């Protein structure tokens, strides 16, 4: 039996990916339950958010504990512009760009230092924004009744799908580019990379800007999706730590790890919540601890080990 050539294999994989994307695109037409589409929206939201966190945390090795600041900035900007009459797409773009501006504001000074300063800086930034937005914008942001009357979930689903694919695609393109190799070189050994002419600061800033941009876009999609919330909500620490946990569960520094982590995390948590009432937090917490203890490299780590074992057997 002849083995498939790498080129044939690549073609099959591309066709397979396109087919899967087509299925995802067709999902709202096939499944009419808003409950399921809603769950799919959450999965896609966290796929985007975790993947955007992973661009900085996974590929460049910089621990960002304030990703909620970028998510929240994107959400706030988009919501304000969109509800004031702007078209959605310019509003989303503006949300992403505001998130980038914020990221550079904290990144430029923090990246000049080493160690935990960046993590502390981002955490402080998100907390400052959380409190400041709560104080300055205490009013509800809810859709007017006439908008609710024509609210449809499917366009929101497609927006999240597009952003998720865009984020994943950007991550894939990045790690296969010269820029991405530089970013990963900085992650592996900053001094060595610098000695080879790779500017650590520049590469870290690029990764930060990309991460913030996609985090901001995801926040913008959330602003388009959610019917009513207090603006402070989107700056809450849970947006950072949920995304971070998903990346750790799935496998940090990989393209597919955040996707697996988000799917596992969101679906499991939702199913437990629907079936176990307030007990679900205990069960979910226990499962999470077990995963972290026994799968230190996340699901992708296990997959890697299995693949190697299979390869050795062959």
């Amino acid at each position, binding site marked *: 039996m002849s083995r498939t050539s*790498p080129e044939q294999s*690549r073609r099959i*994989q*591309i066709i*397979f*990916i396109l087919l*899967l994307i087509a*299925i*995802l695109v067709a*999902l709202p037409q*096939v499944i009419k*339950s*808003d*409950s*399921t589409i*809603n*769950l799919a929206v*959450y*999965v896609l939201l966290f796929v985007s958010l975790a993947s955007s966190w992973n661009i900085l945390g996974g590929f460049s090795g910089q621990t960002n504990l304030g990703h909620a600041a970028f998510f929240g900035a994107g959400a706030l900007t988009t919501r304000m512009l969109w509800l004031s009459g702007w078209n959605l797409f310019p509003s989303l773009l503006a949300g992403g760009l505001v998130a980038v501006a914020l990221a550079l504001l904290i990144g430029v000074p923090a990246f000049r230092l080493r160690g935990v300063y960046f993590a502390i800086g981002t955490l402080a930034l998100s907390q400052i924004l959380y*409190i400041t937005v*709560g*104080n300055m914008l*205490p*009013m*509800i942001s*809810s*859709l*007017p*009744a*006439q908008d*609710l*009357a024509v*609210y449809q979930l499917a366009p929101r689903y497609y927006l999240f799908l597009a952003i998720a694919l865009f984020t*994943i695609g950007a991550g*894939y393109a990045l*790690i*296969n580019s010269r820029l991405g190799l530089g970013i990963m070189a900085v992650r592996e050994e900053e001094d060595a990379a610098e000695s080879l002419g790779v500017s650590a600061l520049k590469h870290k800033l690029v990764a930060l800007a990309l991460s913030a941009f996609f985090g901001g876009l995801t926040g913008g999609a959330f602003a388009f999706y*959610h*019917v*009513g*919330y*207090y603006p402070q*909500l989107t700056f809450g620490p*849970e947006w950072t730590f949920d995304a971070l946990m998903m990346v750790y569960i799935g496998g940090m520094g*990989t*393209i*597919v790890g955040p*996707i*697996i982590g988000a*799917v596992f995390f969101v*679906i499991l948590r*939702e199913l437990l*919540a*629907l079936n*176990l*009432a*307030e007990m*679900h*937090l205990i069960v979910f917490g226990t499962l999470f601890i077990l995963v972290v203890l026994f799968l230190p490299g996340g699901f*992708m780590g296990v997959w890697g080990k299995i693949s190697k074992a299979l390869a050795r057997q062959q």
Partner: protein
Amino acid sequence: MNERYLNWAVRVIGLVVLVTIIVACAPAPTATPVPPTKAPEPTKAAVAPTTAAPTTAAPATTKPPEPTKAAAPPAPAYIEIGASIPLTGKFGSLGQQVRPGYAYAVKDINDAGGIYVKEYDKKIPLRLTVYDDESDPTKAVSKMETLFADNKVVAYLGGAASDMHVATTAIAEKNKVPYLGIAFALNAIHQKGYKYLFSPFPKSVQQGPDTFTILNALILDQSQRPLKVAIFQEKSDWGAEQGALWKENAVKNGYTVVVAEEYAVGTTNFVDLINKAKAAGAETLLALPNQPSGEALVKQMVELGWTPKFSLIIRAPENVTWSTNLGKNGDYVTIFPGWHNGMKFPGVDKLNAAYQAEFKRPADLLTGPSYACVQILAAAIEKAGTLDRDKIRDAIAATNMTTVIGPVTFNPDGTAKVLDPLIQWQNGKLEMVWPKDQATKPLAYPAPAFDRR
């Protein structure tokens, strides 16, 4: 490198799609029925009422009309209703008071055979599905959609706290499902033009004037009234709304606002505000903190030696742990929780007995209003004679009945004309001091200094 990542991408996207399809095709998750209602068979005859419940409040207790000759369509096994409640998280203590009210009301109605629905010419029991939204509005939205899509609820029951209601009421409006919610005083939600939102709970527009009219009615000697007012206003939409109403009504009723300061939601540092109030000689404290801010406020008042003659601290003292944690320092504080277990309305005794048996204390403050929500809904379903959501909504809007919280009618914006009882912590117990005809104790006034209790 490329191929390796492409392989992974293919596998994982495949997994995503597979899981999505499995979830989509899986049967709806079994909801948590609350409580064990012992729902009778739909065909079972109505059980006679065991207490003097108002006839309009418990439709099941009314005698159903004679069956019509025409063949009725097959009735559903249950009337599905659902709630997304913060049972855990920062509003968990409120949600834990709300849920039993719903559960007991459903049980009482089902024990009597269910609700007579004319369209089906029979009594149908209620089935309540409750999900925990972890005090997270985003999760609450998801749960509300599940209740609508999977459980096909004919009506929603609300959770607790404005943060949660602001998200869930919008979903009810979007899905055109009647929504009965309590434990939020924010009036702004009702000004959004929502048609499906109803709240049999006192709002800030009622509590603003009530604060001073009740004080004047309880302290007849004008020279004894605590005329110098300090307002500690939470930086939230509810805080701004309530603060403005307090300021406006203080002046109208002969009071002077000597301090009006803001604090951030969740703060535990009130030192500056207390010092300003103390320096201005404030005699009344009006504030809106949740926990743990509320307890921190009182502890710092003790440390700084400022005891206002009268304190109205809305929300934090509604927690059952208030007195346990603060001891005598928690006494004399008043609240506007919408209900008290000492109210003299039909059904309250039965509710207290059930609560006592399960929780070893009479019903909590938010349990009565949540019980009333189900009473109102049941009456509306019976009045509508159908499970059509729009007709149930119209019947709720036309509500005019007595519940465990007293008489209830609704305004066009979904707010209600309900009693606004003033409750006070006295000797570690919650006592009702207003309205006078319902009061369990007179107002304890003025509050003695903390070091003399």
